[in-house]
């Protein structure tokens, strides 16, 4: 199968409320940045464009249509959209390149979660007949998952606090982070309970922002003469929506996706995991079989800033950045969707 290269990536600063900034204004700066990195002018210079967004965040049907206005799609372009995190837009773009219908693709994701109450909004992605009418929000479901992990002795509250502490400390080196600081596990444990057993710090902030990436064939990357990293594997799997039928203390779909992506074929220097809640980072680390040799969430992860519909793509971009900077030779990025890690995507990125 054709090797596919990442040549450019950018993410906006994660902020709690971008105010009057609309979709186009969120997207355009990150597009300008990736065009500049790849040395191209605009979306006309790539063969395919794919985006990820969610209408409900902005509260508008077809919210993504406005996104096309950021692209300069005159003359018309080959373009598609997934109502998923943009990591899946990357997946769709890779299929387009593999089938020979494109040599390059622009991918972007954006989310403006500030206008609504995100945890409540996301309760409407549950079974519409039995669960959604209960308005069980994402935090309550995550708390239930954490409680199971604690009750079964698989994690301790201190383990969770350590995840938060590392996220805040790592985020100090991430200029795009929303939450960063020298926070110790003791500081976290001293916080009051929020939705038991979660403390507020165990939950992601609500963020507005966007990210973008350009991928292409290795030949194209060479012709553009820009540094690149190679996507050596990508796979995604979904699990039952019936949470009572799943072992919430494990992530079977993450393990399946990791096998499909060939994660075990080499060492893993860096991992960027889309773990919106602290305990989920531990579940994912175990499912991926990551050990001490792997630097986990050096960006701070999504506990430091959670751009809905873009954070999954951003995880891949963060691994790309580490490899281009020479900090890592091979890394894994993970994206998730649905309650309690129902759907998971694993990407392996390697030094060219």
């Amino acid at each position, binding site marked *: 199968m054709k090797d596919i290269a990442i040549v450019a990536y950018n993410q906006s600063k994660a902020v709690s409320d971008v105010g009057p900034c609309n979709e186009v204004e969120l997207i355009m700066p990150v597009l300008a940045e990736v065009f500049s990195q790849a040395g191209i002018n605009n979306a006309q210079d790539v063969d395919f464009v794919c985006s990820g967004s969610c209408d409900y965040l902005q509260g508008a049907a077809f919210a993504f249509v406005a996104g096309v206005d950021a692209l300069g799609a005159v003359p*018309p372009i080959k373009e598609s959209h997934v109502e*998923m995190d943009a990591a899946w837009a990357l997946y769709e773009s890779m299929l387009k390149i593999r089938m020979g219908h494109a040599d390059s693709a622009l991918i972007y994701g954006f989310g403006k979660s500030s206008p609504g109450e995100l945890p409540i909004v996301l309760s409407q992605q549950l079974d519409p007949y039995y669960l959604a009418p209960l308005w069980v929000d994402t935090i309550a479901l995550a708390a239930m998952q954490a409680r199971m992990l604690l009750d079964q002795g698989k994690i301790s509250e201190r383990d969770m606090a350590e995840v938060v502490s590392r996220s805040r400390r790592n985020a100090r080196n991430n200029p795009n982070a929303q939450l960063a600081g020298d926070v110790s596990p003791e500081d976290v444990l001293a916080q009051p309970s929020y939705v038991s057993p979660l403390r507020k710090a165990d939950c992601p902030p609500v963020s507005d922002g966007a990210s973008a990436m350009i991928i292409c064939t290795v030949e194209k990357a060479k012709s553009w003469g820009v540094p690149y990293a190679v996507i050596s594997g990508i796979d*995604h799997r979904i699990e039952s929506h019936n949470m009572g039928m799943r072992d919430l203390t494990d992530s079977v779909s993450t393990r399946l996706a990791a096998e499909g992506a060939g994660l075990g074929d080499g060492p893993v220097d860096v991992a960027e995991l889309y773990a919106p809640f602290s305990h989920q980072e531990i579940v994912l680390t175990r499912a991926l079989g990551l050990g001490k040799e792997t630097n986990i969430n050096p960006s701070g992860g999504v506990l430091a800033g959670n751009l809905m519909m873009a954070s999954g793509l951003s995880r891949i971009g963060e691994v790309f950045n580490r490899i281009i900077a020479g900090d890592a030779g091979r890394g894994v990025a993970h994206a998730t969707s649905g309650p309690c890690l129902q759907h998971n995507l694993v990407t392996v990125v390697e030094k060219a």
Partner: protein
Amino acid sequence: MANLAAVVGIGQTSYTTKRDDVSIAGLVREAAVNALQDADLTWDDIDAVIIGKAPDMFEGVIMPEIYLTDALGCNGKPMMRVHTAGSVGGSTALVAASHVQSGTFKRVLTVAFEKQSESNAMWALSTPQPFSTHLNAGAGGYFAPIIREYMRRSEAPYDVGIKVAMKDRLHGARNPLAHLQKPDITMKEVEESFMLWDPIRFLEACPSSDGACAMVIANEELADQATKPPAWIRGVAMRSEPTMYAGREEVNPQAGKDCAADVYKQAGIVDPRRDLDCAEVYVPFSWYEPMWLENLGFAPEGEGWKLTMEGATSLDEGGDIPWNPSGGVLSSNPIGASGMIRFAEAARQVRGDAGAHQVEGAKLAMGHAYGGGAQFFAMWVVGAEKG
């Protein structure tokens, strides 16, 4: 060069105003099971599922693939959700095809649906937005002025739309799945129906339907072993342009022209009217038949209406290029599925499996979908032969 892929199974629900006998999960599962049965396959034979539908607000379920995982047998498999406005049913089929054409998967299931009765599409399309003019007009109100401009430019007689409305309902009467069953419809009845958005009368507009459509798409090796004749995918194309920009041609959009040129080139089509045997084209409002006849190159600009009036697009009049033999969007419109129904009905034709609306000897057919402000296009050409 893309790997060969073919449609080896097709399943649809019947289309109706309100499927209150099934949940959303029951609706999509019904279409999926029908497609598996048509392909003589079981859930275990499916490697991935690609689902599509129009905006989540149409049912009020965010990212419904999450809830539909179990109904579509996806546990442990890849599942993807496409959303490209009204063209989504077509785009979803194309994304599904790319799973196989890329060599990544051997056999996938794709499903598109809309259960409009769960909510109110008109409301969902009309939520007021900051920083933009609030249009409380629905799709018909948006397209009516564009149709009027077509009528002005082409000097078409006033009753072209009326003819299309009758013709597609007569086609729909041959299709037991079609929502509207009007075997006795006349042009007079259409003309006397009340005006909704001038010049679009009630009977010149699509209905609001519940329904789902599914297809199984397989690689060459598996399609060669299929029980029923496969529909080989001979060309795939998508194009998008912004809703508005200075000088935008809204009657005959460039994105539609480019998309058609791309798909014809792949399928070796030089003259679509001559080379294709039939087409399933997204015509939600009657006048879009003559407009798309021109946009897709079946007629020179300004003359699409002549094909309609001559009966060239009518099965009942023995036309040489039947459009929408299934009855089209004017007979059934579960919005998110409507594009996939066009793609699937094109495939049924070349499989020789279209029942009473079969175009005799059809070997090459086109499926077409459009969405947004006629700015998103998805098309495929399928054939009885590999090419």
